[in-house]
């Protein structure tokens, strides 16, 4: 995605990781019955989307790619979950019913996942992958995990290319006959891909050890925590405290000189 040089993009990845994880954590712990709270979470996320300067169309496009997967996972829950019947229909001898508990669980999955996906899209659009990994490293995430993720990101495209070349080599010699035989051929191709990957891994390891690798990956840290990062984290945490504690609803009832606070506004 094109860099926007927005406030969110210039933040240290650590502050984004901490803040975004805090929001996700709070969302997970909030009972789905407090629907108003999720509206507030959505508002916080919208503010972040706004300061990230990601074009709304692009944001929606990316979110919409993932939403169908969430819906696919959640759509059966209202029918499967046991509980108090809300609605049912009889088809011959078979009864299809939707329970209240099922609907709540459906909403629980869809709302929390969709908001998390929205956060993920904002995070991935404003942070390069290498910065994200550096942020994780500085947050003391096990290095082995970071290295595996880094290699996966670096070589997944190389592997795709290799697989594509194998497929192409097969397709130019395949003329549509002996359909069943093709399963065996696909099996061979997967095997060849595994062997090539293994050999590549050995060559990469050799390239690492000849440059002094001894099990610990070191990289130049150009990240710096600025006052903006502290302000951002503080802003997110204060918003979360307001939402979780319900303080925001109490403010609604605060009276000054026997008048509701919001009347004065």
């Amino acid at each position, binding site marked *: 995605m094109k860099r926007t040089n927005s406030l969110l993009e210039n933040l240290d990845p650590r502050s984004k990781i901490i803040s975004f994880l805090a929001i996700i954590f709070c969302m997970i712990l909030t009972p789905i019955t407090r629907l108003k709270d999720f509206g507030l979470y959505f508002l916080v996320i919208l503010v972040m989307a706004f300061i990230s300067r990601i074009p709304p169309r692009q944001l929606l496009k990316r979110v919409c790619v993932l939403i169908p997967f969430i819906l696919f996972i959640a759509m059966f829950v209202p029918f499967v979950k046991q509980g108090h019947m809300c609605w049912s229909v009889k088809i011959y001898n078979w009864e299809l019913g939707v329970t209240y508990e099922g609907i709540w669980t459906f909403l629980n999955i869809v709302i929390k996942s969709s908001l998390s996906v929205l956060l993920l899209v904002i995070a991935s659009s404003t942070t390069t992958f290498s910065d994200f990994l550096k942020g994780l490293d500085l947050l003391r995430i096990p290095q082995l995990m970071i290295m595996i993720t*880094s290699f996966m990101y670096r070589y997944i495209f190389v592997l795709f290319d290799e697989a594509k070349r194998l497929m192409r080599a097969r397709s130019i010699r395949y003329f549509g006959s002996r359909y069943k035989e093709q399963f065996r051929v696909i099996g061979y191709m997967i095997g060849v891909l595994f062997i090539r990957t293994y050999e590549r891994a050995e*060559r*990469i390891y*050799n390239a690492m050890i000849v*440059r002094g690798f*001894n099990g610990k990956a070191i990289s*130049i840290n150009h990240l710096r925590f600025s006052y903006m990062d502290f302000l951002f984290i503080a802003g997110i945490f204060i918003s979360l405290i307001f939402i979780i504690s319900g303080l925001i609803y109490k403010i609604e009832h605060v009276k000054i000189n026997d008048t509701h606070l919001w009347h004065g506004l």
Partner: protein
Amino acid sequence: MARIIKVLNLNYRYPDGTTGLNNVSFEVEEGETLVIIGANGTGKSTLFMNLMGVLDGDGHIEIMGLTLNKLNLKNIRREMGMVFQNPDDQLFCPTVMDDVSFGPLNLGWGKNEVIKASQKALALVDMEGYESRTSHHLSFGEKKRTAIATVLSMNPKIMLLDEPTSGLDPRSTSKFINILYTLKSQGKTLLIVTHDIFLAQEIADRVLVFSEEKQPVAIGNYKEILNNTDLLLKNNLVHQHRHRHEEVVHEHEHKHGYSHKH
């Protein structure tokens, strides 16, 4: 000039029993460019892996006066860098800068020193401004040049280059040869594995020929070796080439960069 590499009676067998190297002996002088030529599968790359201590063959290897063994391996790798044939194997970090700084950071250099060395290496291979680029988005020629920078940043005295010009287009090849000239002028000892006779002609001080028996069969001045057609033919480095000059069809050995008259 002082001797910088000495290989004596080096033998290597792969785990499946295949011979990788068969009684290899040669010496390299400091600041020299030795081009190792040989057909496919003659053990050229295996020799490099043995020199870097990645493969452990039988025999004696001495680099900068240090015998290659577990004790001296780290010190040897500080002074000797290797550029692999496939740059995708060498560039494994998320960004170009991460790749180029990988070696110096492992050597324990300070942050400023690492940044300075990395930028200098990138400038030398004409890759300035690519620091934050992702390696897999580079063209093949750019990847090859970055691969050289990953080794140059460690400022090694000796550089081993495995098939440096394979897969490069003519312009990238010529750019690459210029880089090799620069390294040569800096006094670095270069060992280059190739079967590109043209590259050998361009850059070599001496040429070492590997036979299909996986052992050196000739070593000497590049003119002397590259003009020995029988030697090159026998070792599959030139081939009989049939072509037509108007009405005359004839066969002769095919070498790059050589013209002939009829």
